């Protein structure tokens, strides 16, 4: 993300501008002019490359001199190709179907001359390939929302399509997370509770803990107003608090099946670790797929001109309006890139006093950004404390609206903060004088951090409230058992509220802002105000941040509320359809298009940031804060994490000492040092490779100059000979 230096060329390469000068100067000396193309086509290097491309047969074209081989040449080419038929499947050849059919016949006649073993090997590899293909075809049928995403791609381009593919990925991820949790935690409980298998619960009375910690007061249900059910549904209190939605339901120490005892606390912790690890691996795998080719680049540019010109047009666009938009966006993008180039050169030519001025201004503005962030976090902190304190009062005595307001106060403050801060950041970055591309990236990164850190602040606030009894650290049970007898359930309820509120806001914005805006702009377009306002544009960064925010909540909340991933899956499915309808009916495509390659990397990067920010509060809750003794599977342990050391202590002693050895410092420090050494080695290797690449490029351009010189001399000599003969 650093600003690259002025020159866009890799170092060490002869400057192109200087070269062109030389060319124009020395045309008289006729050393460097380009040889005619027909000559170049006769060179052996050209021919061998053409052979590899397998343009076997000549084409009947009036103009153009793509390789026109003689008969002997073509049979020689065929011979070369058939030798390689073992390695390459026929369809990868750039031939038309009749030519491929001929090749296949040749290959089959060749088969007769092979030994039986080779024949069998070829047959089996072919049938294996066919099987893989059939399997792949099957899986494409199962692909969710294939038609919808294809039609979006055709109408709005690959940038917006990548957003919907990302949403589909999150739906699948949440479904798999829910399946893991279901298999490990829910299934034994449900099997036993509904007497499907012959198993029973194992309840070990807690020993050593104070009797006060294990008291779980059941909320008295006095006069229940009808709206209390709605409140319960929206906030997870009341009748929902005891269901299997929340942690408190699983006050079970084990499930006794016929042959073994299923250790539920261990399964609970392992399911958490499993879904975090799975998410990390899946995200990294997806990002590497698109990133592999990026790793071998020698230049810093993320978006090169080659990429924009040769791969700039989305060939899958089918609508005229989208095509016009794509043309205008390409015009804008190419002009913006050239402009950015000019700005970068200007930046490099800054005087030192200007640089000092700019850097001190940037430092000051960054301090303002930090101050804004701190203010937002403090606001969330106060709102959470206020909400928690007032929730403990008699809820039934409050008015319906006030009740809901207090319950949702943290969510409301977070949403307001997330709405205001991007505007502030956009204004601030204007003064920081970065290049336009960098400006956009930095603003987005700041907004991402802001959005995701707010959830962390919320969880930390809750944690601090839970572990303080009247402003002193709690000694009796380690947590405030009077206010939070079952604190994990309450944290789970906060996460549940955040998720529901997020869904409500998205639905409300679509219904009450997007559609009316579209209606007003279409039907009252005579009013200047609406004309200026214009139709909605599908803003990809904001939408992506929204769903990453939802996914972060899900990751944090899945520990405290095992059914939350299922809720998240449903929520994302609803969001998919709502966003699709909103896109098709209310949005016009933005003239500034997001590139798909850039988008995929950006989405997964933001998701990874979300995952890292989700792991922090989870680790603190699991490892630091004592688990509640009144409810949940960990009543017999000090902290949630204690299950694992207890399990390790049941291993045979050799395995135990191995595990203890791996987790001790005596292992970790040398391991870390070895990792650092390996990393330095690879960095040095990459640097050496880069230097070799630069040298080879220089050598290539020198060789080419020699080639042109020689061709020039040859043509002159030929001309001289012809003149002499005449």
């Amino acid at each position: 993300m650093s600003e690259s230096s002025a020159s866009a060329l890799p170092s060490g390469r002869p400057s192109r501008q200087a070269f062109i000068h030389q060319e124009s100067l020395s045309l008289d000396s006729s050393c460097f002019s380009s040889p005619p193309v027909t000559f170049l086509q006769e060179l052996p290097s050209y021919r061998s490359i053409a052979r590899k491309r397998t343009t076997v047969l000549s084409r009947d074209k009036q103009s153009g001199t793509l390789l026109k081989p003689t008969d002997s040449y073509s049979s020689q080419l065929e011979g070369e190709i058939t030798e390689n038929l073992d390695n390459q499947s026929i369809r990868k050849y750039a031939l038309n179907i009749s030519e491929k059919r001929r090749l296949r016949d040749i290959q089959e006649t060749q088969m007769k001359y092979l030994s039986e073993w080779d024949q069998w090997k070829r047959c089996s590899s072919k049938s294996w390939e066919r099987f893989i293909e059939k399997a792949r075809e099957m899986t494409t049928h199962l692909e969710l929302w294939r038609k919808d995403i294809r039609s979006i791609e055709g109408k709005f381009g690959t940038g917006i399509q990548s957003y919907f593919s990302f949403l589909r990925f999150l739906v699948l991820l949440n479904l798999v997370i829910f399946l893991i949790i279901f298999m490990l935690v829910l299934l034994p409980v449900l099997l036993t509770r509904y007497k499907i298998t012959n198993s029973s619960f194992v309840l070990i009375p807690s020993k050593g803990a104070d009797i006060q910690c294990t008291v779980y007061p059941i909320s008295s249900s006095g006069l229940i107003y009808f709206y209390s059910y709605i409140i319960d549904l929206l906030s997870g209190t009341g009748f929902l608090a005891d269901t299997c939605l929340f942690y408190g339901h699983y006050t079970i120490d084990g499930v006794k099946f016929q042959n073994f005892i299923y250790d539920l606390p261990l399964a609970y912790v392992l399911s958490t670790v499993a879904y975090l690890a799975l998410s990390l691996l899946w995200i990294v795998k997806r990002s590497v797929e698109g990133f592999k080719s990026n790793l071998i680049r020698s230049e810093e540019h993320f978006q090169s001109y080659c990429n924009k010109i040769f791969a700039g047009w989305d060939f899958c666009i089918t609508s005229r309006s989208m095509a016009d938009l794509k043309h205008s966006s390409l015009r804008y993008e190419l002009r913006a890139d050239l402009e950015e180039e000019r700005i970068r050169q200007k930046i490099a030519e800054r005087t030192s006093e200007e640089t000092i001025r700019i850097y001190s201004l940037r430092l000051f503005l960054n301090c303002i950004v930090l101050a804004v962030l701190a203010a937002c976090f403090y606001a969330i902190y106060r709102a959470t404390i206020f909400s928690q304190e007032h929730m403990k009062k008699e809820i039934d005595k409050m008015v319906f609206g006030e009740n809901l307001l207090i319950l949702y106060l943290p969510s409301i403050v977070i949403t307001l903060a997330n709405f205001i801060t991007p505007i502030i950041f956009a204004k601030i970055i204007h003064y920081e004088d970065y290049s336009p591309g960098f400006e956009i990236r930095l603003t987005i990164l700041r907004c991402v951090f802001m959005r995701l850190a707010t959830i962390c602040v919320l969880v930390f606030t809750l944690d601090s409230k839970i572990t303080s009894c009247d402003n002193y650290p709690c000694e009796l049970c380690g947590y405030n058992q009077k206010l939070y007898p079952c604190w994990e359930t309450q944290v789970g309820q906060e996460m549940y509220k955040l998720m529901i509120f997020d869904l409500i806001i998205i639905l409300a914005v679509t219904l009450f802002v997007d559609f009316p805006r579209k209606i007003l702009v279409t039907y009252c377009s005579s009013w200047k105000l609406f004309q200026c306002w214009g139709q909605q544009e599908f803003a990809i960064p904001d939408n992506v941040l929204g769903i990453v925010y939802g996914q972060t909540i899900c990751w944090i909340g899945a520990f405290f509320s095992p059914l939350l991933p299922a809720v998240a899956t449903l929520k994302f499915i609803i969001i998919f359809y709502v966003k699709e309808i909103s896109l098709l009916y209310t949005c016009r495509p933005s003239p500034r298009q997001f590139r798909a390659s850039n988008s995929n990397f950006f989405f997964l990067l933001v998701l990874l940031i979300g995952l890292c920010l989700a792991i922090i509060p989870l680790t603190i809750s699991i490892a630091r804060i004592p688990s509640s003794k009144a409810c949940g599977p960990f009543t017999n342990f000090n902290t949630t994490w204690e299950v694992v050391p207890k399990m390790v202590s049941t291993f045979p002693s050799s395995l135990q000492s191995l595990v203890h050895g791996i987790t001790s410092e005596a292992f970790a420090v040398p391991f870390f040092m070895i990792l650092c050494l390996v990393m330095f080695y690879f960095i040095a290797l990459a640097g050496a490779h880069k230097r070799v690449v630069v040298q080879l490029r220089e050598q290539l351009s020198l060789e080419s100059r020699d080639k042109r010189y020689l061709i020039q001399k040859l043509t002159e000599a030929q001309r001289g000979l012809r003149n002499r003969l005449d």
Partner: protein
Amino acid sequence: MGQCLRYQMNWEDLEEYQALTFLTRDEILCIHDSFLKLCPHGKYYKEATLTMDQVSSLPALRVNPFRDRICRVFSHNDAFSFKDVLGMASVFSEQACPSLKIEYAFRIYDFNENGFIDEEDLQRIILQLLNRDDVSEDLLTDLTSHVLNESDLDNDNMLSFSEFEHAMAKSLDFMNSFRIHFWGC
């Protein structure tokens, strides 16, 4: 616009097309049905041909700035047989391998068909992409020189096939954007 004799594709032909192209069974059948609707009356589908105009006015290609080049590259004798259409769909399908796409992209972008992408080709590509007649000379030369800066390794002001291949292998958008879904298959 009549219809061909409604011969169903036999199973061996379908298997062969599946083995020789990157298309799935459903895609081949879909293309076969659409081809039958477009080809002239009374002809067997294997012998019928479509004109270049018919193909370049297909919905998938209608708005593509490179449709003329695509038609030229994939047609034989200025006409499209069923096999040509299948070949074209195979190259543009999602499952096609990168080397095949790069090969045909090179042929498509080589406007003057001299086996190299030179400055004249680049300027024509840029003009097609921008779709405007009033592009300034400066912009064109700027862009061409930037492209050649990045990908012309031997400094001969042209892109040979290996240089183009090298540039496209590093390009992240290429595989995503070089795709066409014919007939909504």
